[in-house]
């Protein structure tokens, strides 16, 4: 009995290996993905946002201000410009993201206690730049206006101590948890590679049923009298084992070599991954059991697998999506899996939550396998 199952599993491995396209995809797809994404985000932290200063005053006060701004966290002064038009030009070309314009007569206005308006321009077309740049500018804003305000008060005859008290800001320290350096590579690399992995696995799983029934050898299997349940169970087992086998080197590389964060235990994370591997396998199996041919099966599977990362809320958060979409997204195992990466790899949110996530994925799995079984039996 067991031998029969093992023989089917072995043949399944041969089948996957002899399909050249699938072999390449399974073996290389997710690894290439991981390496590529790691390379893309190798800068890791968005420092050195290109900034330019237009100093129309060119006084010691304005230079001091420029100096202060150029030292702001995350900003990197790449140009000192003569005119506002030059700045505009550089921003249009995308070579500068932040521009600071210090007006003419800045020093004189400050000295006379008149208002001086410094302008900060931020290119908002790329949000990743824009949010970081504006956070940097916000800090600069605070210190500059406080210093200027204190001197203004002193100029009006207020005692220095009292003036400082007026500007005694609420001091606050920021602590970004779970990813203290706001490392973009930590945020995206593993998740994107796993996204490729799940797409590759879906493609393989989409061949599960149609790959047998669409071949003439199906007659042999039917004639042999082996139960369909046993046959497809053995096949599926082999496929799921392969899915796990290809995710292992991914994890070794990601956690061992690239030192991406894994705050829960590795066995727990592997268990979580296994539940997901079974879940995507069940979706592929379902697609392959009602498709007329292998291409359609691949399309059905991928129609779910492709947008699932965006829908999963791993990047743009679920909470910000319309309520109906949040509900719909929870039907997909990918949503649970990618949310899970956030909750377990980063936050170590505990076994209670993980078991909840695993149960959700298994429930989806049960529905898909059940539907597939009905479709297979009916034929």
């Amino acid at each position, binding site marked *: 009995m067991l031998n029969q199952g093992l023989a089917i599993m072995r043949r399944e491995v041969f089948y996957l290996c002899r399909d050249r396209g699938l072999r390449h995809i399974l073996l290389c797809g997710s690894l290439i993905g991981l390496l590529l994404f790691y390379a893309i985000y190798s800068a890791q932290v968005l420092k050195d946002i290109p900034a330019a200063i237009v100093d129309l005053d060119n006084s010691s006060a304005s230079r001091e201000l420029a100096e202060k701004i150029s030292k702001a966290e995350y900003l990197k002064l790449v140009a000192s410009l003569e005119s506002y038009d030059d700045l505009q030009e550089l921003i249009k070309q995308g070579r500068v993201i932040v521009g600071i314009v210090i007006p003419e007569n800045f020093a004189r206005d400050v000295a006379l206690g008149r208002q001086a308006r410094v302008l900060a321009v931020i290119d908002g077309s790329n949000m990743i730049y824009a949010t970081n740049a504006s956070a940097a500018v916000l800090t600069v804003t605070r210190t500059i206006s406080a210093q200027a305000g204190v001197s203004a008060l002193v100029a009006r005859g207020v005692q220095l101590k009292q003036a400082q008290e007026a500007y005694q800001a609420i001091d*606050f320290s920021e*602590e970004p*948890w779970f990813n203290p350096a706001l490392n*973009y590579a930590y945020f995206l690399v593993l998740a994107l590679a796993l996204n490729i992995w799940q797409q590759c696995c879906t493609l393989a799983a989409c061949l599960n049923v149609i790959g047998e029934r669409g071949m003439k050898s199906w007659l042999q299997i039917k004639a042999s009298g082996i139960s369909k349940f046993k046959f497809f169970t053995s096949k599926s087992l082999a496929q799921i084992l392969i899915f796990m086998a290809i995710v292992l080197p991914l994890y070794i590389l990601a956690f061992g070599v690239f030192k991406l964060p894994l705050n829960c235990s590795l066995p727990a994370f592997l268990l979580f991954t296994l539940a997901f591997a079974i879940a995507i396998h069940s979706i592929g199996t379902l697609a392959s059991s009602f498709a007329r041919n*292998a291409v359609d099966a*691949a399309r059905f599977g991928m129609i779910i697998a492709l947008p699932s990362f965006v829908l999963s809320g791993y990047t743009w958060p679920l909470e910000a999506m319309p309520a109906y979409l949040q509900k719909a997204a929870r039907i997909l195992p990918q949503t649970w899996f990618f949310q899970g990466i*956030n909750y377990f790899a980063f936050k170590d949110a505990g076994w209670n939550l993980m078991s909840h996530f695993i149960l959700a994925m298994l429930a989806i799995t049960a529905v898909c396998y059940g539907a597939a079984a009905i479709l297979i039996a009916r034929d």
Partner: protein
Amino acid sequence: MRQILDIAHYEMLSIFKEKILFLMVFLVPLGYAALFGATYVTAILGNVPVAIVDLDDSRLSREIAAAFANSPHFKVVDDIRTYRELEEGMKNGRLRAGVVIPENFEQEMARHTLTRVLAIYDGSNLIWGYNTRKYIREVFNDFSASNTASYLAGLGYTKNEIRSIMDTVSLNTEVWYNPTFSYANFLFLGLVMMILHQIGLLSVSLTITREKERKTWLQFLSAPVPAWKIFAGKSLPYFVANFFNYALLLWFAARFIHVKLSGSLPLILLLGFLYDLVITGAGFFISTHAPNSLQVTRYVMLLSVPFFMISGYTWPATHIPAFINYLARLLPSTWMALGFRQVTLKELDISYILPHIRALGLMAVLAVLLAVNFTKRLKPRPESGTEINGGASYPVRWK
């Protein structure tokens, strides 16, 4: 010309006859756009759930709490009172930010002892992380300003005097192009370009593999019809459909997702035309070389994520290693996505996107040249041996 149109006519027929292909060409792009559109329709990340752990419970600490409660960016979660609960909430996702006001905060402020409010935010998802950091700083800046203003009022200054003192040096920030920090403005059209890329490429790249699988390719090969006419006729319907989808998706984006779509219309049309041409040419080229539809479908489907990430559309190219950037420049999607943003979001004129037009134009010429120069002779293959799905067939359910 007549011959080309006739070939195109029969290609249309086969698109209409194959239901799934028909859906793919005419419905899936809009479907995906609608799905992603719904995802980003909120556009601005608001209501960040924040907990205020007030260990001081003084006037000042309550004012800080009020500042967060009054901010449009935050939503205070009321039932979290302790640091432990805060930790728990951050882990299980109920909270994305927290503010901890230490004991005796007001007193120590008054005594000028070093004391600090702790602002915590979730860095594991950097869309939350970046935005929340910015929001927190905004709240504290505003709060400090109002604090100063009330202090000065206490010294007996008038409103005008206070304003002139506080605005001695004011740093006004202008955010250009996307002042509301709308995520939809930022990302959605890039995704639309990827949808068009993927579906366009996939549907064209099946046009010859389909003939190969059905053996009808022999009819094309044995007929005295030149290769370029086969290309022109067979890809014309896809070219038109892709362009129609381009227009449809842009209209959809502007009308329903309220994405900013300004800039010069002729430029938008030109970019779309070139992009479409590259995709159609490249898809046809792939199709003439691929063994069967299954392999094409598999490979093409996997392209979308890497192509988008590599383009520098999100994580900026300035922070991507040079060799990756060179790689990205070989892809039409990179030029299209970035060029399109220059036109529609930054509203730049043609002089700024000449490089993009040049690159896309060059790629279009190259793709079409490759596509029309396929050889009309096959290299006969041996029986496939033990290989699976490598020849001109794939599993099809048979009766």
